């Protein structure tokens, strides 16, 4: 079968390479004939491809190519987004000035670390700017990158303006910058603290997409736990608002852990069994029940005891948040290697 070759003007056909394709075809015709008959192979039983096993149990899906930067990015981004929200609301409701300042610094630190981690993970980091060619609402990665960009600029501007007015005295432009930056970092911090749940939820990885309705809430709670924890470690262990937020996040995470443990569905297996299962459990215990108990215990007894218990709760929530992100990514890897799910699931539905 030869090609009709209507060559566009200015193009020339590389005849040598074209002839090579014909040569491959001829060689295949001549050499790929099996003349031996009745050969009885030794070593049976041989692996077979069946509707149940798929193609020899070779995974259908590819594993996510992301490395350690991504779970760390989820952790930092979640904490920074939640810290920006806490800082802005604390400012608007007239809470402790120092708390507002610290929350802004956490958000600003996150706004520097987050893009660095994200860029480091790219296969071609020097091409990060390619992300900014387009805005695609149907791509959570695109929406996320633009949110990150806006959030980072706003959070950094807020902290910078505050720093300048502390140092050189307040002025109108600085105040405008500070307020506008704070409003923007509140507006963008809200989605930024949880969009990573959308990012991994809207994929083909079964353990992720089957939890798509939970992940943003779960990740938001994890981010709040971490942000509150960091603020408490910075000394804000007397704030009742932070205590309430930390307790709320810990209770939500407890419920999330119970939900995972109580459902017996094959797609949740990577969250329960094997190494990824144990990371999930450790992360869940550290972000859910342990800080809940510590915080409740801290409500009773003396100030010193409360102070120390909240410090432990803070460490626990921070470690739990980080482990939870690691757990979900590693569960995604296990889930992608599962050759059964994509084939079985389809048969059922």
């Amino acid at each position, binding site marked *: 079968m030869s090609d009709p070759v209507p060559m566009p003007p200015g193009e020339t056909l590389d005849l040598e390479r074209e002839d090579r394709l014909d040569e491959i075809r001829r060689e295949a015709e001549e050499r790929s004939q099996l003349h031996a008959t009745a050969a009885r192979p030794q070593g049976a039983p041989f692996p077979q491809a069946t509707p149940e096993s798929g193609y020899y149990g070779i995974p259908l899906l590819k594993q996510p190519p992301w490395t350690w930067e991504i779970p760390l990015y989820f952790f930092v981004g979640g904490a920074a987004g939640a810290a920006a929200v806490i800082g802005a609301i604390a400012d608007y409701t007239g809470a402790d000035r120092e708390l507002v300042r610290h929350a802004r610094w956490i958000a600003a630190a996150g706004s520097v670390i987050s893009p660095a981690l994200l860029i480091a993970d*790219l296969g071609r980091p020097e091409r990060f700017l390619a*992300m900014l060619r387009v805005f695609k609402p149907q791509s959570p990665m695109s929406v996320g990158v633009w949110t990150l960009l806006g959030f980072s600029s706003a959070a950094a501007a807020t902290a910078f303006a505050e720093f300048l007015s502390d140092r050189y005295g307040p002025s109108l432009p600085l105040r405008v910058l500070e307020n506008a930056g704070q409003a923007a970092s509140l507006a963008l911090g809200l989605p930024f603290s949880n969009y990573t749940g959308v990012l991994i939820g809207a994929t*083909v990885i079964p353990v992720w997409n089957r939890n798509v309705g939970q992940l*943003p809430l779960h990740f938001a709670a994890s981010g709040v736990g971490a942000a509150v924890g960091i603020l408490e470690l910075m000394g804000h262990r007397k704030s009742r*608002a932070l205590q309430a937020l930390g307790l709320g996040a810990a209770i939500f995470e407890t419920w999330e852990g119970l939900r995972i443990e109580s459902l017996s569905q094959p797609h949740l297996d990577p969250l329960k069994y094997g190494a990824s299962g144990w990371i999930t459990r450790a992360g869940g215990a550290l972000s859910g029940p342990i800080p809940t108990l510590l915080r409740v215990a801290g409500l009773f007894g003396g100030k010193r005891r409360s102070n120390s218990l909240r410090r432990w709760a803070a460490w626990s929530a921070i470690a739990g948040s980080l482990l939870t992100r690691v757990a979900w990514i590693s569960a995604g890897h296990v889930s992608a290697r599962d050759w059964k799910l994509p084939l079985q699931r389809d048969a059922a539905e």
Partner: protein
Amino acid sequence: MSVMAFLTDSTLCIGCKACEVACKEWNGVGEDGLNWSGFSYDNTGAVGASTWRHVKFVEQAPVPGLGGNAGEQASWTFSSDVCKHCEEAGCLEACPTGSIVRTEFGGVFIQPDVCNGCGYCVTSCPFGVVERNQKDGRAFKCTFCYDRQKVGLQPACAKACPTESIKFGEIGQLRQHAQDRLHELQARGITDAQLYNPAETSVRGTHAMFIVRGDPRSYNLPLAPEVPTVYLQKAWTASALAAGLLLGGTLLAFLFDGKKADRRENR
């Protein structure tokens, strides 16, 4: 420009791997292991960053008469796998750089000069086709020989296929051809042959169709592949809910916090 497609007919495939060789030579894709996988005559196991055509060697329970087999020997079919070039392509929707585009020939093409290696397409392909090249960092897959189609040539694999198991042509004509071929096979007593083209799923059909014998799942072809954009609505609803709870919860926590410092004093 007409919309083109592949039709890969496993009932004609002889497992010679000429398509793999032609693809690698034309596209300059490196050799990726001549080791035996232990699964029949398969080398690489699946399509990936360095395997854009992949011949599957499907050994199944003995079916007397299939492929001229004796009753006690495993039945053996071959099928050359390739990027499906989905009508609703998960990788294309997910790509944040706009590197992945739909060509005028209906194929899904990764522009290598735009791809920044974020890897999101890898997690968005329901067929596990796209893969990031570890050394290069970018994502790679079958280009549908976009360069060849541009000058009116058929893809290299189709050209090199000695049995014309790989057919390339206008998509409507190929669908018709597939139906004719299935009728022909039926008439010859091969009743288990079927066309794999998941048109009823969210993928809405593929530009690489396959004629397979028996259950497509034996060939790692899922019955209902899903494009991940179907999860977006639920995901963003949950995201909005989470944002609302965070805003409301934080407001409540601070409004009911008795220990309001004197903000004006500290300013």
